[in-house]
């Protein structure tokens, strides 16, 4: 690898590959360095991908990207040891606004797209360091003994941004900024069984979030998404939970799978893969001081471009869009010391707008109301209302009984509702 490239992209994920695709299409000589065996082989997400911004930034996906199931049904469940209260939203006429597919297959597709545009993707290379010249400009990367140089570097290394830490751009990752997700992919021999149990027709998808019991009432939650013939079932828990968590993280996903409420839905499905990954949870708080430096642009999770608003979690559309904007910035800059336009582009895009709008979401989501008080109160309220004994309850009496049984005051409930309305 002695030849010089115009652009080196670190990380063949959605952000890096979107940038590589756009730049290669514009005639740039692009090298993508990926530590896994192939694009996607080190990646994990919940998940689902929202289509709205992909249509603007990478409309090619509509043609032939793998979209196992378009989400038709949304569920949010508040779960306790004893009961589950679920809100379900289903559109009568199927729409194509978000889809569920494995991140591996989506990334794999994007990798082929980038390669077909001329980007050179080299796998099984771990980048150890971003190289700078004597003036501090970024000029290349080092992997072991090998050094490769380029006019522009795009850092799309992901949430675990060792390179940015080593370059002194960001401080060491703190537990307040990330959560760990552990996930099981459970495959059905007959996907009709999965569809029947979850109330789906062919090609229709379900996105399901759980709060409360799956994380022992600590910040985080459970999730279930439907791939083509499997479900992705998992639990995400904030790393700040380390002081209180009792069940080890390595058993959280299996604990959810074997919960009687979930067990009957996935009975008979066999484990295809057990995976884990960190995910940003604090949105814009994780952002580096700037997104562009001389010769360097930062995109995707490494830049903190993941919107976390409790139930709404978006990473892939942010990653792709930031990669595309990085490519545009490089195309327009013409030289490595004129990249601050990337910051401007981000600020005038939905990326910074949306992250800024939800900058306080973490205050609601990292407190104990959302994942402890709320699931317990709502389930107690439902039980008090639906249980008919001597004297039938009214809504008011059920609410009064529920609050009386708990140590949460009505004032606290109302204050937290106001926070949720203000910040989520």
């Amino acid at each position, binding site marked *: 690898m002695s030849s010089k490239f115009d652009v080196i992209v670190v990380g063949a994920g959605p952000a890096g590959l979107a940038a590589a695709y756009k730049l290669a299409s514009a005639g740039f000589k692009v090298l993508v360095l990926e530590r896994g065996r192939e694009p996607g082989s080190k990646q994990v997400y919940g998940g689902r991908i929202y289509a709205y911004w992909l249509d603007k930034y990478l409309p090619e996906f509509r043609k032939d990207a793998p979209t196992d199931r378009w989400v038709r049904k949304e569920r949010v469940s508040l779960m306790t040891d004893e009961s589950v209260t679920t809100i379900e939203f289903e559109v009568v006429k199927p729409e194509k606004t978000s889809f569920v597919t494995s991140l591996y297959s989506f990334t794999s597709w994007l990798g082929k797209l980038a390669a077909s545009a001329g980007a050179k993707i080299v796998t099984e290379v771990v980048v150890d360091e971003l190289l700078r010249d004597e003036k501090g400009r970024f000029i290349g990367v080092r992997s072991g003994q090998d050094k490769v140089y380029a006019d522009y570097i795009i850092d799309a290394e992901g949430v*675990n941004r060792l390179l940015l830490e080593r370059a002194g751009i960001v401080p060491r*990752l703190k537990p307040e900024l990330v959560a760990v997700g552990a996930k099981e992919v459970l495959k059905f021999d007959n996907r009709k*069984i999965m569809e029947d149990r979850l109330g789906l027709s062919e090609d229709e998808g379900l996105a399901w979030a759980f709060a409360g019991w799956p994380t022992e009432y600590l910040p985080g939650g459970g999730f279930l998404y439907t791939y083509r013939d499997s479900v992705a079932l998992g639990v995400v828990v904030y790393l700040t939970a380390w002081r209180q968590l009792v069940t080890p*993280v390595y058993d959280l996903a299996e604990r959810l799978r*074997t919960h009687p409420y979930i*067990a009957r839905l996935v009975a008979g499905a066999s484990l295809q893969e057990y995976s884990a990954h960190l995910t940003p949870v604090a949105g814009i708080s994780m952002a580096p001081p700037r997104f562009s430096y001389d010769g360097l642009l930062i995109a995707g999770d490494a830049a903190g471009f993941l919107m976390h608003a409790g139930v709404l979690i978006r990473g892939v559309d942010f990653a792709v869009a930031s990669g595309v904007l990085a490519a545009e910035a490089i195309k327009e800059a013409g030289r490595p010391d004129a990249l601050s336009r990337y910051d401007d582009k981000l600020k005038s895009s939905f990326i910074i707008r949306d992250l800024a709008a939800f900058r306080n979401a973490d205050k609601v989501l990292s407190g104990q109301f959302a994942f402890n008080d709320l699931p317990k109160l709502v389930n107690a309220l439902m039980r008090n209302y639906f249980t008919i004994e001597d004297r039938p309850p009214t809504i008011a009496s059920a609410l009064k009984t529920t609050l009386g049984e708990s140590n949460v005051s009505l004032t606290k409930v109302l204050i937290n509702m106001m926070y949720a309305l203000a910040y989520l």
Partner: protein
Amino acid sequence: MTAQQPVKFMTIEERLNVNAWDVDIYRPHIKIKDPDKCRYCEKKPCTYMCPAKCYVQQGNIVVLSTEACLECGTCRVVCPYENIDWNYPRSGMGVWFRFS
């Protein structure tokens, strides 16, 4: 639907066994910098925050085996003493996700 089978709780070892790996047993990518420090670590969060159970408490010390590491980075972030030297495995080694 057929009659419900009792659901068996799979151990973490059983679950990790279904994954594809290419393990670099000669060059562990994670090291505990000063194992002695772990003795004084009260909660030893690595032993229960790691999603792959790479860290096991034996007596008062922590034993690390990186073979089944999922490369998430949790241990590095959660270690209260910043006592973990963490890198990615070399040249394509480690876990190989295909369905996540």
